[in-house]
């Protein structure tokens, strides 16, 4: 249950009482003998249960020449298992009133089902089948190879600005495997042998590299018994070897240009390499993006879109990943404004953050904005399951991270914000990318 913890405070004077309410997500967690980490959250509000497995494998576990494997497995592991005929996996979910999907990032792959709670066992069966003995054969690889190519055409090649992120990452991660996008190279997938796919599965899709995170209308003690029945027989595997590739600092501004046939309007972006998501600085950078571009009164939106009317869109966000992050600012011009003018105007606002402390009013504003965003992240059981698994996987086994986030946000001071802007957002540390329309063919 989400328990509301109300901390009342008493203030005199003119300010509204800054009452803080944090929801604490209660959970139970343990390791099974085969190394599978289990997280359980009980909430009887609706007759719904989310069963999810987060495998700590993403595109950064791939090697050059064989990119796109982790994302490919996102597809392949729906093909069937020793006990589930080819093509039946998704059918079983739908036929029993559930929903399922999966997604892959540079760092992890997340599979889930959401069911009416009387189908809890079915969710356990499906995920344990997938972990224990999926069928990885030629026909599945061939079919999914075509499907992945269409996915790439749809999400990247045919989509306006679809190549932006991969163009940025290619430049700011010359050595680290964040260099390539999770969708990977189609040529690599074409050349890969079946045995290579099977070996990748054996290495990474193992209980000791996974978190089983379950949230919803369950009974904890009964759930524990069922989990040990379904997942107990999955064999433990070798520990995963992963060494982070260290990138040398960027010391001189990088500039690159890419062309896109699906657009008419150019875009400019500036990207700074920043620390990974487990760092406090990563959170501070998230706050900086709130100041710069969250809401119509934010610094960049107000200035570029409303006051100077020179941008159609402007934004900034911290693309936070496990080993590093990418702090990205971007703008699309309006009224034919030159791209360098947009960049200059964005830079001015960054310099202000580096020079002066933000006002008390602005500070309270972003605290309110972040508190409101935070509240929505745990509104549904699937979100709870994922947030708990994220905490364990990416915050040093700190499953409770989601509960500590509001406190961490409150602990960040105006000085922290100024210091992080100085430390990370310098022109000489960045990539400036011109994203331009391709000439008509």
């Amino acid at each position, binding site marked *: 249950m*989400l328990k*509301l913890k109300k901390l009342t405070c008493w203030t005199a004077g003119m300010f509204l009482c800054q009452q803080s*309410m944090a*929801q604490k997500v209660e959970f139970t967690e343990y390791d099974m003998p085969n190394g599978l980490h289990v997280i359980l959250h009980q909430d009887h*509000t*609706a*007759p*719904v249960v989310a069963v999810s497995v987060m495998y700590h494998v993403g595109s950064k576990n791939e090697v050059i020449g064989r990119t796109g494997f982790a994302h490919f497995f996102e597809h392949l592991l729906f093909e069937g298992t020793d*006990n589930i005929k080819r*093509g039946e996996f998704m059918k079983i979910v*739908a*036929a*029993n*009133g*559930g*929903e399922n999907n999966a997604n892959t990032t540079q760092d992890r792959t997340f599979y889930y089902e*959401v*069911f*009416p*709670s*009387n*189908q809890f*066992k*079915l969710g*356990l069966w499906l995920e*344990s089948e997938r972990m224990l003995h999926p069928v990885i054969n030629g026909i599945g690889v061939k*079919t999914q190879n*075509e*499907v992945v190519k*269409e996915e790439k*055409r*749809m*999400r990247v*090649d*045919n*989509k*306006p600005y679809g190549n932006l992120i991969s163009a940025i990452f290619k430049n700011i991660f010359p050595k680290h495997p964040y260099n390539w996008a999770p969708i990977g190279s189609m040529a690599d997938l074409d050349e890969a042998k079946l045995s290579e796919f099977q070996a990748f599965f054996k290495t990474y899709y193992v209980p000791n590299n996974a978190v089983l995170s379950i949230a919803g*209308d369950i009974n904890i003690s009964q759930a524990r018994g069922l989990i040990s029945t*379904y997942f107990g027989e999955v064999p433990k595997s070798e520990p995963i070897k992963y060494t982070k590739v260290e990138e040398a600092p960027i010391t001189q501004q990088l500039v690159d240009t890419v062309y896109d*046939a*699906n*657009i008419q309007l150019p875009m400019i972006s500036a990207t700074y390499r920043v620390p990974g998501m487990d760092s406090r600085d990563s959170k501070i950078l998230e706050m900086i993006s709130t100041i710069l571009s969250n*809401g*119509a*009164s*934010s610094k960049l939106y107000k200035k570029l879109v*409303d*006051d100077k*009317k020179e941008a*159609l869109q402007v934004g900034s966000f911290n693309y936070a990943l496990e080993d590093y992050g990418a702090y990205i600012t971007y703008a*699309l*011009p309006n009224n034919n404004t030159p791209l360098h003018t947009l960049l200059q105007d964005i830079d001015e606002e960054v310099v202000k953050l580096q020079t002066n402390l933000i006002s008390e009013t602005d500070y*309270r504003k972003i605290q*309110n*904005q972040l508190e*409101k965003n935070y*509240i*929505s992240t745990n509104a*549904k059981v699937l979100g709870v399951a994922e947030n708990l698994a994220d905490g364990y996987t990416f915050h040093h086994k700190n499953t409770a991270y989601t509960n500590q986030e509001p406190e961490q946000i409150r602990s960040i001071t105006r000085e922290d914000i100024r210091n992080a802007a100085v430390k990370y957002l310098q022109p000489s540390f960045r990539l400036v990318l011109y994203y331009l329309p391709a000439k008509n*063919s």
Partner: protein
Amino acid sequence: MKKVIIILLAVFLCHYAEAQTTFDRTHQPEAGPAPVISFKDPVIYKFPNGMIVLVVEDHRLPRVSASFYIDAGLVTEGKKAGAYGLMGQMLNEGTAAMPKAQFDEAVDKLGADVSLNSSGGKADALTRYFPQALELLSQGLQTPAFRNEEFEKLRSQALTGKQNESRNVKAVSGQVVNALLYGTDNPMGEFSTEETIKNLTLDDVKSFYNKYITPSRSYLTIVGDIKPALAKQLAEKLFVSWKGSNLALPVISTVKNPVKTVIDLVDMPNAVQSEITVSNLITLKLNDPDLFAAKLANAILGGGAEAYLFKSLREKRGFTYGAYSTIGSGRFQETFKANAAVRTAKTDSAVTEFLAQITKIRSQAVSEEDLKNAKARYNGSFALNMEDPQVTASYSRNILINNLPKDYYQTYLQKINAVSVADVQFAAQKYFGYDNTRVIVVGNAGQVRENLKRLPFEVKEYDRFAQPVAVK
């Protein structure tokens, strides 16, 4: 007034009797006893100015959201295409009392989301700031500033956006499909262009405002951490004295489908995939006795990863990342659409396959298993939706807007579960066109034209504004 509705998920009940006790991994586990779904009816208040207030209490999280919806039906813009949407945007550009910057600051300071559009708007906030957020929404609706400077800004943005859309295959397809189906003189088929936007004036925006932003036929839905009495009190204070024009639901003339199936080809030289849409117009009101059979027929044909279209076009042939179909329902003429983005080289094969799958569901009875599974999906999503109190609120609003029986959603699953195989086939024949449908292909015409012409259908070519072009 406030009652709790309880529904048993009947479809899942039958499994329980045969529940097994021993563990056998080779078989799919049996379901537990059917969960009980319960939801509360909202508390409803009616104001003399025509506004209806619905309140659903949900105290799990310290937040409240309000949505304001004006039921104007379909709005015809004609030569002023773009004015209605632009009017909605102008409601976010400051009020009589507050210039835009001040209004935005007031919203963001609360950490709230307040946004307005041509059919109303919404305000979401932490519980402690909700009264202020709702007040800002009401000011945006009732006293917009309508200054020329902001109008010019939005118009220039709209023009830039139009230019940028011209190479976006998906966006062009979305526009041209409805234009070809309904005709560009119909509110569902008309769209704005650079030309129409250039000709708009601030007075056009004001006249759309005077007609369409009004408490008449409006619904204020408040959901979250709030007591109904307080919600009512806030709404009264902000809205009860508001007067506006009287709205009536417009009558729109019915549009015919083509006599014989035709392929409409729209050239986008930059496309690497073709957007294919097979579509016909239908009339299917929410209280039509065919509704549930038609929804299930659509679910079996193209409702998801286990449906005919996905199985054939993606899983069997690998033409596309996904192929789906949708069927609309409501008070006006709606569409049945089957759609996929397929790779250019397979465009003609995919068209053939779409029509083959539509033929299949029209001519062959669906399996008992497919029907049972489709019903299970509806039962399941009904349960899954119970996580979201907005859904309960939307059920009540739908009943009012569509003039449905009070027990419409209480008996929803009963009606779904009563549909037979024969009902599904009847609905497929009635609502999914085959020999009098429209196949719209937006893609690289140079590469797909010749192969499409080999199919036994007339091929007509259009530009991205749905205007005929000479066939080469």
